[in-house]
């Protein structure tokens, strides 16, 4: 029974699901007993009136599907020798690639630097490739990115784009305690780097008020009942695939000293007439402005991009660079034949931008976040939790999933309008 509270929290937070909402929910205090015990917003903070958005499937502007490159042991950061090339791997960050990108690049480029090689090839131009390339440039390297696609087309920009550093990043057991320390190093470094991008034109990196709303008191028991998140017998060790949400690692408690925490909203002041709510200030990435900024920085520092698709590690022999940083994301499964990558499908739905709305929320299995390129809607599976999408590499939109997620907010807004008369 001693571990019961931990398990309870663990199971509770699996209520989140797709593309990193999980970690956000946990941080928002939905499952934190500490937050439940106190941390009510002080009286001098007033909750602003939140305007609804038009929650109608006929407003859908885009549905994006991504495949998170998940590895049970955490991202691949080892070094491999292929012919006369030394390959420094940097891929497999699950639902935490954006959040950990700078920290991961810092670790990998630190290794690259020891070689004293100044000509560096980076494979891939997603968020991991770009941040690796920029980090290498800042370490004095002359960088060429070899890539099949550039940023607007990479899987990275089909993500959710908010601070979710331990969303499907690893399984606790296969990753082991050493990875937890490495994760903390990466998360802290990334967070600090992102803070340096705040306040710039176009808000490439921004903060937003994020509300967790619930019709019931946010006790862990309710959620636990609904969210066993166990789909099969055994576990990763016995089946080669995770079988339960409880196998997924959570590390966010290690960095609460720098991450703004969720606070309880006073009864009667919860937005949209919902009974219970918490609010947290959350960091997010606006893909358009941020992607443009990173590419501009890369070119301004003399970087080159070569459009090229690799088919096997042998192809590296033709590169002039001796040092290669391999950042293919999920594509490592095909190009490096890495079967340790497990696909985890995620889908986001985009409504037109509403720059006047500066909030996000989670309610009843659906989340929304107002970003510069649109209102992002994401449904999550209350039954499957972290297991949602695991093993699923179907990279096509499921419109019914989008409509269901939007419908949660349609119902919320309609109910509130009727209540107000």
């Amino acid at each position, binding site marked *: 029974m001693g571990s019961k509270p931990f398990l309870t929290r663990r199971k509770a937070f699996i209520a989140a699901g797709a593309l990193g909402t999980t970690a956000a929910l946990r941080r928002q205090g939905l499952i934190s007993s500490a937050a439940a015990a106190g941390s009510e917003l002080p009286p001098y903070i007033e909750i602003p009136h939140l305007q609804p958005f038009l929650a109608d499937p006929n407003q859908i502007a885009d549905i994006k599907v991504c495949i998170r490159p998940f590895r049970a042991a955490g991202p691949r950061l080892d070094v491999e020798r292929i012919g006369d090339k030394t390959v420094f791997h940097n891929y497999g960050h699950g639902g935490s690639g954006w959040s950990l990108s700078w920290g991961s690049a810092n670790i990998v480029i*630190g290794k690259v630097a020891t070689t004293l090689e100044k000509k560096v090839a980076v494979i891939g131009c997603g968020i991991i490739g770009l941040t690796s390339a920029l980090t290498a440039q800042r370490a004095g390297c002359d960088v060429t990115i070899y890539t099949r696609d550039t940023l607007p087309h990479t899987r990275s920009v089909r993500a959710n784009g908010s601070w979710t550093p331990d969303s499907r990043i690893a399984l606790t057991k296969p990753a082991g305690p050493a990875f937890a320390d490495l994760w903390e*190093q990466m998360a802290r470094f990334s967070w600090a780097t992102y803070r340096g991008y705040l306040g710039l034109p176009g808000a490439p990196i921004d903060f937003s008020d994020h509300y967790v709303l619930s019709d019931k008191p946010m006790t862990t028991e309710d959620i636990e009942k609904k969210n066993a998140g166990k789909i099969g017998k055994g576990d990763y060790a016995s089946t080669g695939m995770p079988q339960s949400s409880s196998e997924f690692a959570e590390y966010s408690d290690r960095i609460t000293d720098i991450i703004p925490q969720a606070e309880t909203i006073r009864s009667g002041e919860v937005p949209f007439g919902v009974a219970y709510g918490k609010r947290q200030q959350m960091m997010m990435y606006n893909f358009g402005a941020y992607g443009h900024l990173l590419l501009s920085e890369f070119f301004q520092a003399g970087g080159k991009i070569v459009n090229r698709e690799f088919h096997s590690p042998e192809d590296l022999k033709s590169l002039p660079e001796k040092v290669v940083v391999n950042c293919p994301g999920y594509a490592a499964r095909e190009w490096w034949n890495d079967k340790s990558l497990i696909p985890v499908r995620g889908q986001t739905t985009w409504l037109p931008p509403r720059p006047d709305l500066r909030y996000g929320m989670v309610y009843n299995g659906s989340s929304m976040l107002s970003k510069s390129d649109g209102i992002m809607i994401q449904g999550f599976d209350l039954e499957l939790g972290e297991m949602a999408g695991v093993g699923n590499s179907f990279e096509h939109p499921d419109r019914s999933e989008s409509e269901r997620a939007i419908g949660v907010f349609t119902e919320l807004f309609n109910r509130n309008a009727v209540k107000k008369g």
Partner: protein
Amino acid sequence: MIRKSSLLVAGLTFLLSGTAFARATLPPLTAEQADKGEALYGAACAICHGTAMRGNFQTPPLRGTFVARWANVPVSELSDYIQRAMPLMAPGTLSREDTIAITAWLLKANGVPVGKTPLPSDDKLLHSFKFPAIPAGSYKAVIPD
């Protein structure tokens, strides 16, 4: 004589350990020195540079890019720097012996194998050894992941 034997041991260490540093003239160091340096590091340096020597957003790491910054520089310059500038909040407080031990630990942590000959305290001798770079091709052999 001391210098010659140091070089010989270093060279042998290189050959025996199978690591492939560019130079055979690796700085010598003993396990005792490195262990002492590691303990001193934990007490005087880790508060800023971190227990894993990776630094943080403000503090430089003592692995990885650290090698790039000190590669091929005489080891005496590193130890002199440590002695006069570190720890940042109390520079000049490390004894010569402790400084050499910390230098030995930094070398070991960056892939230099330990042997029977200690890292010399004598500045001239120390000057004859260069902080080794890790050639791209031997990265894995030198620093296992």
